């Protein structure tokens, strides 16, 4: 991934900064620049999420995506943040301990890198609360 591309959403990934719509009160993470409900009548503003949420569903990945091979088995889950929106993240937990509905909180971790010489991408993952 190019430097600009990983840098562009760095702050959002570091601090779970998404958006919310002042017109309808909905929250968006990953951030959206147009409210799907209000569309052009929406008023999107930046919003920093509290970060806590719960596991909606999850899987334990044994055959990894490229660049994640050294982490297998790793847990990937959909986390529903307390403000409403859901996101996909690695969950740092023993694969035998995770369950649907588990409360989680954010931690700061390495998401990946562009090889040994490339830029390191940091961001948010989740651990049991």
């Amino acid at each position, binding site marked *: *991934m190019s430097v600009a591309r990983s840098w562009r*959403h760095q702050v959002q990934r570091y601090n779970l900064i998404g958006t919310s719509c002042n017109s309808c009160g909905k929250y968006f993470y*990953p951030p959206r620049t147009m409210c799907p409900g209000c569309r052009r009548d929406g008023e999107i503003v930046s919003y920093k999420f509290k970060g806590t949420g719960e596991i*909606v*569903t*999850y*899987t*334990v*990945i*044994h*055959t*990894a*995506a*490229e*660049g*994640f091979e050294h*982490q297998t088995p*790793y847990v*990937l*889950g*959909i986390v529903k943040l307390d403000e409403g*929106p*859901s*996101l*996909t*993240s*690695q969950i740092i937990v023993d*694969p035998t301990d995770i369950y*649907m509905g588990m409360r989680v909180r954010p931690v700061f971790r390495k*998401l*990946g890198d562009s090889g040994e010489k490339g830029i390191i*991408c940091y961001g948010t993952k989740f651990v049991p609360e």
Partner: protein
Amino acid sequence: MRDVAIIGVKTTRFGEMWGRSFRDIIVEAGVGALEDSGVSGDDIGSMFVGNMSGGQFVEQEHIGALIADYSGLSEGFHVPSTRVEAACASGGLALRQGISAVASGQDDIVVAAGVEKMTDVSSGSASTALAAAADREWEGMMGATFPALYAMIARMHMHRYGTTSEQLAQVAVKNHHNGAMNPIAQYRTPITVETVLNSIMVADPLHIFDCSPITDGAAAVILAPADIAHEYTDTPIYIRGSGQASDTLALHDRRDITTLDATVFAARRAFDMAGMTVDDIDLVEVHDCFTIAEICAIEDIGFAAKGEGGKLTEEGETAIGGKIPVNTSGGLKSCGHPVGATGIKQVVEITHQLRGEAGKRQVDGAEVGMAHNVGGSGATAVVHILSRER
């Protein structure tokens, strides 16, 4: 709008075709379909080709022009040729574009094709290319794979509806049984539930035998206005319904993780256009990229109530001879899944069935068939209803 008919079809063999290139297989499919229909190059008004990722799989874009060129339709003919992309739904979408071109009166004879050459890269690179059908920035970057996304659907489905790993396995068993009777299928070996459950875990709860393979293959159909279809064939197959729908790119944004709303809406639109209901469908090819995907598909189209797809499979109702035969071709699971070609291959299978030329896989008295093609984890769905009767 004009009614549209399929007057010729062809699918290449599906599998790992080490000796054959991207252009070899698409030319074989295109020429085969033209031969099947009896049309000549002079007749072709336009071409639409479904291809997900020539750029990543064979480092080739500008697929439309390439295919026109190597089909001998550039020099002298200069046939307009368009590449269509919607991840794994690219083939279904190419057909829909072709139908529009004929129905609108823009063109008479149109080729709708699909192709993917996936084995020229490592399986890791192929997985990365496929993962581009999901949300690269907010799913892929987190380490999501395609099996992982469907595994999360499966986990939720099992949790909410009591669907079991055995029921998922039965989808694979049934599709391998069908695929064993399909001469073009990648895997023509019957398997058992134990084969699936004892195979390695890819993304819990999905085993490797819950997943469709990496495949090379191409397929093509020739479309014509229904009014002149009989000039080319004694058994035109009519397009009765065509529906397409979109949903959120990322799985986490869906209204309901276990429902592919794109399938719900695409099917509804196709049924509305055809003036039909699920009861009118004699057989269906659904997008079983993973076993759970077939269960969701038969529920979301309406063959089973939500949560009952596993049970319907377990009861044998989706087998040939059952209430609604699903994936007589072997599906993506056994027949193979060259992503851009799959949507066309499904329609070729339905055409063979409706023409009564499906051999051992023949569904008796098949009059109306359906093809259901999905892109990504359900961000695009395309549904077509075909029938013998206009």
